[in-house]
């Protein structure tokens, strides 16, 4: 469809579905629209209702995050003047997002009924002059804003994105990095009980004797799987309750990702997959985590390949525990908790046997250098 004019008055409300690459680009769109004189409304947290609404309209074969996106768009209906559907082809030269994201605006327009008018922006960094900045300028022009204001807004949006990324790369959680000041469920059309996981159940903090230093898990996966508690069944909080420290693949700087990726004979052409694989390599080499959990959506194409490469490389070159956690709308909370507990138990036992990450110099990890030696000795035995 042509990216036609879409005049909107000052103060009109633009709805942003809180799903998929919202978790990578929200500050950019927020700054852009606000500088262009529009108000934004973010859909509520992913709840059971949101997911079930999405399942009704999306193709059966679509993955959970896409179904959640459908649900978020549906939650915005009737509450906003327009829904924003970015077509995110590529966020970095030489890479793509995912075919489903390329077709997403078309899928939404044809599958979701009673849709308010939509604004579409196309971001394709593989083509010169089609990147984020250009998308901002084109959006401003189609909204009928003056060129000067368009440039200022786009520049401010890029700056906001830079600040956000710096925050994420320094390991801050999404809400904090995005400057999310209000309570987490401040969005519109929030259905259900909020961010406490789909079933609202919790794990009680365990009272077990643990090493002085908590085990650390490297959590790798798409940003929308790591940061959306409604999709990942509140996984990070569950891990925290189990007494785990965490570092995510999102916390790697672009430079680190580049350094780990450029040594591959063929670079991965999915931006997120490239990051996940780089993070797995980085965690393995840096010996800063006790184990890796790769969170994937059932049916995710890129992850079916990336997960396999990461797992095989990890097994071949280290004895770092690696768990592939596949999540979809049928995943039961209890089963997930059992798997997490078993995994964390194993990490703690390894820690106790002196098989934790070596060279970290943390207190509690007895004789890091020696641990490394034992580690390798066991491997080759």
């Amino acid at each position: 469809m042509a990216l036609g004019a879409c005049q909107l008055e000052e103060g009109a409300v633009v709805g942003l579905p809180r799903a998929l690459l919202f978790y990578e680009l929200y500050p950019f769109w927020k700054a852009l629209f606000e500088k262009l004189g529009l108000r934004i409304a973010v859909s509520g947290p992913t709840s059971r209702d949101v997911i079930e609404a999405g399942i009704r309209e999306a193709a059966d074969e679509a993955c959970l995050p896409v179904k959640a996106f459908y649900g978020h768009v549906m939650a915005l209906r009737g509450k906003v003047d327009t829904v924003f559907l970015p077509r995110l082809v590529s966020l970095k030269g030489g890479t793509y997002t995912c075919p489903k994201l390329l077709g997403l605006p078309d899928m939404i327009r044809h599958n979701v009924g009673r849709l308010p008018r939509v604004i579409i922006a196309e971001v394709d960094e593989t083509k010169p002059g089609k990147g984020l900045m250009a998308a901002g300028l084109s959006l401003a022009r189609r909204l009928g804003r003056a060129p000067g204001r368009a440039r200022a807004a786009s520049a401010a949006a890029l700056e906001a994105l830079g600040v956000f990324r710096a925050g994420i790369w320094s390991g801050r959680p999404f809400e904090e990095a995005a400057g999310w000041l209000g309570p987490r469920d401040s969005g519109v059309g929030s259905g259900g009980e909020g961010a406490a996981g789909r079933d609202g159940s919790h794990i009680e903090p365990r009272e077990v004797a643990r090493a002085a230093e908590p085990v650390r898990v490297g959590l790798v996966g798409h940003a929308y799987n790591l940061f959306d508690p409604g999709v990942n069944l509140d996984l990070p909080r569950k891990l925290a309750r189990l007494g785990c420290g965490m570092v995510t693949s999102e916390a790697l700087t672009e430079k680190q990702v580049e350094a780990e990726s450029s040594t591959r004979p063929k670079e991965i052409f999915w931006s997120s997959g490239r990051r996940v694989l780089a993070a797995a390599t980085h965690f393995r080499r840096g010996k800063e985590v006790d184990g890796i959990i790769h969170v994937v959506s059932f049916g995710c194409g890129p992850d079916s390949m990336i997960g396999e490469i990461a797992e095989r490389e990890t097994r071949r070159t280290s004895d770092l525990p690696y768990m592939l956690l596949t999540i979809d709308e049928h995943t039961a909370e209890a089963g997930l908790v059992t798997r997490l507990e078993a995994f964390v138990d194993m990490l703690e036992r390894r820690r106790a046997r002196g098989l934790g990450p070596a060279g970290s110099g943390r207190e509690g990890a007895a004789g890091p250098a020696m641990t490394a030696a034992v580690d390798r000795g066991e491997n080759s035995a």
Partner: protein
Amino acid sequence: MRVTFPHMGNLWIVVKTVLEDLGLDVVVPPRPSRQSLEAGVRHAPEFACFPLKLNIGDFVGALAKGAEAIVMAGGIGPCRFGHYAQVEAQVLHDLGHDVEMVVLEPPRGHAGEFWAKVRYLTGGKPLRRVIGALRFGWEKLKALDDLDRALVAVRPIELARGAAATAHRRAVALLDAAADRAGVRRRLSEGLEAIGGAAAETEHGPEGWPVLEVGVVGEIFMILEPFANQEIERRLGELGVHVRRALYLSDWVRTHLLPAATQPARRRRAKAVREAARPYLSHFVGGEGLESVGEAILCDLGGCDGVVQVAPFTCMPEIVAASLLPEVGRDLGLPVLSLFLDEHTGEAGLQTRLEAFVDLLRRRRAARRTPAARVCGTSAGRRRGRLRQWLCGAST
């Protein structure tokens, strides 16, 4: 160096011809079967798409026959196929096969990369020899596709069940053995005659039903590999359907590999597909996603009674297409059946779905005398009229 490659329909005859013509020692993997699929499923990633599992099965079979290197195609995304070679190399490595993979793909740096690989593979044969071998393979490919077209046309009206397929099988074997381009052409015309000889003097299919026209769209591997699509063309043909395959390998080569300037008809067709899809899908989505939508609409304009989409389970581009095809079907009054297939697909279930679909198409055909009359004055008819009007400018 003994080289092998994965199966995809009749592709093996073409690749074998080209590589042998260049003097390579070629190991053709055993045809995909339950056994090779089992090996593939055992060793390939659980959630990889179906073609990758069959590839692994092919390679395991070929390595057992003594292959030392694999020629594989690659890609630059966003479809998963572009990373097949990397994952497959890892799987084979962990199985203890340190096999060399020569991946032919669009170069990222400069075109020299590609030719360097070709030179390496052929042991430095001059370009003229390479082009000669490719032309010979191309001749065979075109002939094989012509035989396939004849087979699907004759099958619904064959004299005795399986007669057309028998003639086709014999013709393919003869074509495989053809030693030069003149031989290919001679054996093609003989083969076409033999397949045509299996046709009855009637325009009606089994039990006197009129022959239905059904378009088959979808992902290239699933369309071309009969083992992967559970011989959907045979199943439909035996139900009295003339299958119009949206994608033949020779067409794909014309669109993607041959110089665009030499293929004006293919270019027009590709443009018509894009334009037909545009109201529904206005951006490429990798693989054949856009083509599946566009070709389904062109099938309708071409008078098809219905469309079947075949794709591997979890195929990303085809999921986009499958999300939009119901809308296309509603707008145009075109029945569409989307089939996502993998190793778990049961034969009986598939057969039942196809029979039910064909049944539906027959009833529709009976209710409306001619396909053209069925939508007069409806909004679908007007929409189709506008589309046809536009396409008249774009395609012949």
